[in-house]
């Protein structure tokens, strides 16, 4: 019988077919795991590049203010591992006070570290340096966590670990890229998208005659206010002190203003940036009820509790942004939304308060690059 005989060839085809089925049923998952691992590896290389470059950018920025590059690098590496242990939540009573205390302590440690590492930086620059340090820290942390799961998955051969990190990789890379692009904004003191709240408040206050000298400093930590008259109402325009990068403690500021003006505050309006849904336009303005503030909890709680205790109406106006726009240099579309937000603030005050009332207008957000 010659090779090429139909029955012989069909036997080969059958064998090849069964071999194919056997190989893919036994090793299909392994082939797929290998492909996932290669893709995670590519993402990890990018995360590592961003972590290294942001560290170098932080070193380059810090060394301008009084310490050598070697000293800055050594201290910075020690600081990149700095962590915060969240308070125990098994006994939730008083958790917000404990968290508030820990966040204050953390801020103090950051301030202390920046002062040591950049002794010649002024207070506003020190705030920007703090923000730069935080971005480098976030990128270092993301890289180390992803690397941990990648190596652990590889070591144990756990499909579920590898699959999870593979599925989350695009989102992690998106967030990391947003922070990486933001480091230049923080290092150079450029305004970011999150600063739209303080910008709205300042523009509103200036429209009604407020000047930087009239700003009342430190009603709470790094937060103050302008007192302006608007169509017979008194408006306390609250924002964090700039143009250094800080969000301050606006919740405590609102609480103190309400307590100082016993029973006279009739409305609290908060203005902030909010995460947009995919498909929504950047810079879209939305209104709602509640406190628009994205802190870990204590500041939002302070506003909500104060409003509830004193029966004060509370409303929010937000400008929709994605993560990249919120932490990156302010986009033109966000800046263009400011006049419309001011119009909505005016309408809210006109329509929902009476002449003689007192109103708190709180602009929440990072004040980097936004003057008083």
């Amino acid at each position, binding site marked *: 019988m010659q090779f090429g005989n139909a029955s012989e060839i*069909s036997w080969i085809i059958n064998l090849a077919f069964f071999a194919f089925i056997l190989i893919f049923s036994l090793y299909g998952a392994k082939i797929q795991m290998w492909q996932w691992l290669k893709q995670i590896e590519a993402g990890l*290389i990018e995360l590592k590049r961003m972590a290294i470059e942001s560290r170098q950018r932080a070193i380059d920025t810090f060394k301008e203010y009084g310490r050598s590059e070697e000293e800055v690098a050594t201290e910075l590496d020690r600081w990149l591992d700095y962590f915060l242990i969240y308070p125990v939540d098994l006994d939730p009573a008083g958790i917000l006070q404990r968290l508030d205390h820990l966040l204050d302590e953390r801020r103090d440690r950051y301030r202390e570290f920046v002062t040591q590492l950049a002794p010649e930086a002024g207070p506003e620059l020190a705030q920007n340096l703090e923000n730069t340090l935080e971005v480098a820290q976030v990128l270092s942390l993301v890289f180390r966590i992803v690397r941990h799961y990648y190596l652990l998955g590889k070591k144990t051969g756990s499909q579920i670990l590898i699959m999870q990190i593979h599925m989350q990789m695009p989102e992690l890379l998106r967030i990391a890229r947003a922070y990486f692009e933001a480091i230049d904004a923080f290092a*150079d003191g450029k305004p970011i998208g999150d600063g739209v709240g303080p910008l709205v408040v300042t523009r509103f206050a200036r429209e009604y005659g407020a000047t930087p000298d009239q700003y009342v400093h430190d009603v709470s930590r790094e937060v103050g206010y302008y007192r302006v008259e608007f169509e017979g109402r008194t408006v306390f325009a609250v924002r964090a002190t700039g143009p250094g990068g800080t969000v301050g403690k606006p919740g405590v500021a609102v609480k103190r203003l309400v307590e100082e003006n016993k029973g006279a505050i009739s409305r609290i309006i908060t203005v902030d940036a909010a995460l947009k849904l995919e498909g929504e336009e950047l810079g879209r303005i939305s209104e709602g009820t509640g406190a628009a503030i994205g802190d870990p909890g204590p500041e939002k709680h302070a506003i909500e509790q104060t409003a509830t205790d004193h029966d004060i109406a509370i409303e929010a106006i937000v400008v929709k942004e994605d993560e990249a726009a919120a932490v990156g*240099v302010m986009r*033109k579309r966000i800046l263009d939304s400011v006049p419309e937000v001011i119009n909505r603030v005016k309408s809210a005050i006109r329509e929902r308060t009476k002449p003689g009332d007192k109103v708190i207008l709180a602009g929440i957000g990072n004040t980097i*690059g936004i003057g008083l």
Partner: protein
Amino acid sequence: MGVVTKIISLSFIALGTLIVITYGGAQDPVISFIGMFAGLMLWSIGLALMGAGRTTQVKPPPPTITEIRCDNPDCDFKEIRDFEPGDYILRPMEAHCPKCQGSLTIYGIYVVLEQEEKSTI
């Protein structure tokens, strides 16, 4: 993706193409089937290798613009220049408006992206 992986994946694709061209259209239906099958198998292996470890190109960020405007509401003077260290929004400028000699203030600092994302739905 390394150069070696790239060469291997391209070799697989090239070999697959060669087999499909040579045997895919053979008169004998069995040879044609085997040719097509083997060729496409090599193609898929090559493409899988190419897809693994692919990185996306990151575009450089656009320049940051500083927009300076005259404080006089009746004057429309506006100057746009590149961001300089020390600039911040609402910073009063030392120079005066060339049109009306009024004071100048930084109105905005921003970036304009080439293509802002717009949903088609």
